[in-house]
């Protein structure tokens, strides 16, 4: 009940933010020095051709008309044609989206799988070697630029040891899964896994380090609360005290910070893709910017903005789930 009401409210808010994002992206074109037509038209275009192109693209209309057209088109998921690829920008973007999603999800899984147990162990064995190791790891992890980490992984695991491929994504998870299910061949998944392993470690390390740190500090703080003593006085098994009570409450600050750090995840994905030539939205947006492919720039920015808003709603819902005291009023 509480959750449904919250989701409705939050979605309405999200739509407003998305509208703001769309408007800002629209305005971006007007703060850019140089006329748009200069980027679109071939260098040797005749004045007539330039004129025709400008008319085709609606560049001569008043701004508010252009804005209205732009919104109406967006509502139909029409982001215009990519100048670079000559195809609808939305097609180009949605073709790249799975690669980015796979990367982000894999990194999140890596992060959660390692960080929470590490943080718990670190907090429960305070001032023991494990704790120092985990603390040191998380300090280095949050201080390392992920693109450099990626390059070091390529250098060591790829170049020196030759264990794993260091660039590209030969096969997507979807097709790999199809191969496994319909033809019973595991090669697809294997290739997929080999290619995504280093990028997801690269992207996931910062988050692993961050969550380890948050879990450790959160657990330590939570262990000092009086209710912990009460649960012990009841005779509850220590593991239950730690997991059911302490860890659960530690999730609340972890989720808060994670919500604030989601931008870091997406930004990190962009740069990780660039390091590993990963054919996702990140490499796409960099190409688009370098070639001033406006429809593609706008489209990718909007997709990223919307993705970000959606992730944040999910994070808030999680927060709400773990913290019964919040009422979003």
């Amino acid at each position, binding site marked *: 009940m509480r959750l449904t009401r919250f989701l409705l409210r939050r979605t309405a808010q999200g739509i407003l933010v998305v509208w703001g994002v769309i408007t800002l992206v629209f305005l971006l074109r007007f703060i850019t020095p140089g006329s748009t037509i200069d980027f679109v038209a071939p260098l040797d275009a005749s004045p007539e051709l330039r004129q025709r192109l400008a008319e085709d693209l609606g560049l001569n209309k008043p701004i508010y008309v252009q804005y209205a057209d732009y919104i109406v088109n967006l509502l139909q998921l029409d982001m215009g044609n990519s100048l670079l690829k000559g195809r609808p920008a939305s097609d180009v973007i949605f073709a790249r989206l799975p690669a980015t999603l796979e990367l982000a999800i894999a990194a999140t899984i890596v992060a959660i799988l390692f960080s929470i147990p590490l943080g718990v162990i670190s907090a429960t064995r305070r001032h023991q070697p494990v704790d120092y190791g985990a603390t040191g790891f998380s300090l280095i992890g949050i201080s390392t630029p992920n693109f450099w980490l990626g390059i070091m992984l390529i250098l060591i695991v790829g170049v020196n040891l030759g264990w794993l491929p260091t660039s590209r994504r030969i096969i997507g998870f979807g097709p790999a899964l199809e191969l496994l299910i319909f033809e019973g061949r595991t090669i697809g998944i294997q290739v997929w896994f080999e290619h995504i392993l280093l990028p997801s470690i690269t992207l996931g390390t910062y988050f692993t380090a961050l969550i380890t740190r948050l879990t450790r500090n959160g657990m330590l703080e939570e262990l000092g609360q009086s209710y912990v003593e009460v649960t012990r006085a009841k005779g509850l*098994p220590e593991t239950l005290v730690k997991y059911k009570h302490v860890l659960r409450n530690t999730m609340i600050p972890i989720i808060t910070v994670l919500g604030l750090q989601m931008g870091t995840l997406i930004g990190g994905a962009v740069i990780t893709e660039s390091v590993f030539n990963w054919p996702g939205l990140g490499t796409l947006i960099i190409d688009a910017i370098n070639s001033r492919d406006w429809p593609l720039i706008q489209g990718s920015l909007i997709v990223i903005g919307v993705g970000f808003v959606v992730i944040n709603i999910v994070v808030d819902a999680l927060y709400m789930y773990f913290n019964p005291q919040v009422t979003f009023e």
Partner: protein
Amino acid sequence: MSDDVILRVSDLSTRFFTTDGQINAVESLSLEIEEGEVFGIVGESGSGKSVTARSLIRLIESPGRITSGTIDYRDEELAEAVREDYPEAVDGAFVDLLAIPEDVHRSLRGTAFSMIFQDPESSFNPSLTVGEQIAEAVEVQRRASSNPRSTRARTRSSAYSLRSYAAAAVLPGRGYVSSDSKDRAIELLQQVGIPDPEQRVDEYPHEYSGGMLQRAMVAQALAGEPDVLVADEPTTALDVTIQAQVLDILRDLQEETGMTILLITHNLGVIARMCDRVGVMYAGEIVERGSLGDVFDRPTHPYTQGLLGSIPDLDAAGGRLQPIGGNVPSLLDAEMGDRCYFADRCPKAMEECLEKPAEYPAEGTDDHAARCYLADHPYEASQALPEDYFEESEPP
């Protein structure tokens, strides 16, 4: 050794090793509590009452440690069960709670003894329902008793798979508490007078008022039908009318079940209303003890006299302890010295008080005793210490 003694504490010392130095929060404390009585401990804030209570159920955490003493608890069944493995812990029907391992001790919590804490608001986990938390207390005992009644089996009954731990962190109410325990939680809530228990059981602590939370805590403490209930200032955080209600509930339950209660408070009114016997605590020690009549009508220790003198009307439920002139001692080992700890505030301090007094029997019942030379012989004005004696030798 009296036959109906249920808890016998001797020479208990608990210290905290902090960066500021060693704190002697409980100092060679000895006391005996009889089965079925309400024993009160009264003392100023910081005198070590809560640390004593927590020491009794071994909940002292780093940087604190119980450094000496025994806490003998009478339970023949338990004595039988542990005699073989830990013979040194057993003395007749008594088992030294400080000499048994943690898991055996844990199996006693909630059922042999149970505790009500000072501040109800912070004593519940804010993100689980009150009902869930009470049901947990029921469930611990249910699981323990569904096994053969051997203590070792009881400790093992809490075995719980790793998957369930992960589930417990994410999904509340899944994996540990059964619906039977939940039903019992509703009964318990009803028993302590919470209206609409069926609905209240699913509410969160922040939806309860302070008084209701304290009752819920009483319910939680009673879940395992404890033999000894340690109640650490069960009413301090509540307003006067609610204080009276909670005390009534405790009183009724005690009469019903015959359990033993150790009641800690700094409210003399509460002591007068509830207790059979009293210990007065000062600077980590029991400085005077005896029956209610001994302590209230024939106080021997100047500190007790000061306490009683400072409260005009014992029946006023709000009658809190007024500070006696002077400062509460810091309990820092380095500053304690080897004298009567009360000497710097004592109006009758004499030269001999610079050496530590023993506990002397005092006038009244056999139980009545005080840690003061005045219990042994009368005051000698000629020996009095000059009034500013401590101001000179011990600058603040």
